[in-house]
């Protein structure tokens, strides 16, 4: 299964997981996703921004313009609600992995 296909449905959880380790702007988030997945998640970079905006509308992340940067840069940070959503996403993923393993290894 290609990285992009496996990512569908889990992008929000992955973004929250990266942000849980530290605030980041969009480009840094995408690079972190690529590096931490050893290049498996090499998704079309533009898809991240609508996902981040959706997470912000849901209250899972907040963002602000970074004042120190020479360019106009939007930095994202996870919220308490976002951490709760991340926990829920982790539990859901663990359940999914268990179920798939049970079928594949049966």
């Amino acid at each position: 299964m290609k990285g992009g296909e496996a990512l569908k449905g889990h992008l929000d959880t992955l973004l929250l997981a990266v942000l849980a380790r530290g605030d980041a702007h969009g480009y840094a988030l995408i690079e972190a996703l690529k590096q931490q997945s050893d290049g498996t998640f090499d998704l079309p970079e533009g898809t991240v921004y609508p996902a981040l905006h959706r997470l912000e509308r849901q209250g899972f992340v907040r963002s602000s313009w970074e004042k120190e940067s020479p360019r106009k840069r939007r930095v994202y940070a996870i919220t308490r609600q976002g951490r709760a959503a991340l926990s829920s996403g982790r539990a859901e993923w663990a359940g999914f992995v268990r179920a798939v393993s049970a079928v594949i290894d049966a």
Partner: protein
Amino acid sequence: MSAIDRYVSELSARLPVSAHRLVHEARDHLAEARDRFVREGLDPDEAEARAVTELGDVSDLVAAVRRDGSPVLSPVVTKWMPRLAFVCVLPALAFLMVNVIEWLAGNDGGTGVFGSSLEGWTGILNGVVGVGPFVALVLILAPAVRVEAIRTETGFDTGVHVRLSWRQTVLAIVTGILALGVALYLLSENGVVMLPESWDIW
């Protein structure tokens, strides 16, 4: 015009106004990517072209924004709405508090902050008290109105949805009850509406 300028220009022309923050983010992203590719040895034009390719087609980005739904009102406007809603509801809350205090003190028939007349200056002030919560209700609900792309058999259609968070739902219910209560009280005190006597708790 550079590849980045062309990309950003097309994105700006095709995105709904409420999603225009994405234009700034895309420009910053492309500039960051271009600088990185130049450091890796590409010439500036090649670096820009690669940055644009890796960001993805403008159509895909616009489609992703439309799928997620755009708020009808710009976030710049909706940011202020909860605070304005609070200001609009303050006179009604003060009105309610005075009536409760008078009732607890044993005074028969709360008369409200400004009396209950709807004539003259008192009427204007009571009008503000009465209308304020309805305005607050609109300010609470408006940011939740979204235009979304709905998948149909033949493609996509546009639909208007209202999506409330649990917080917005609670606020809307409480404000609605306050609005109805204050309006009914003022209207009944002035004979516009006749309420059953059993409702007269003052």
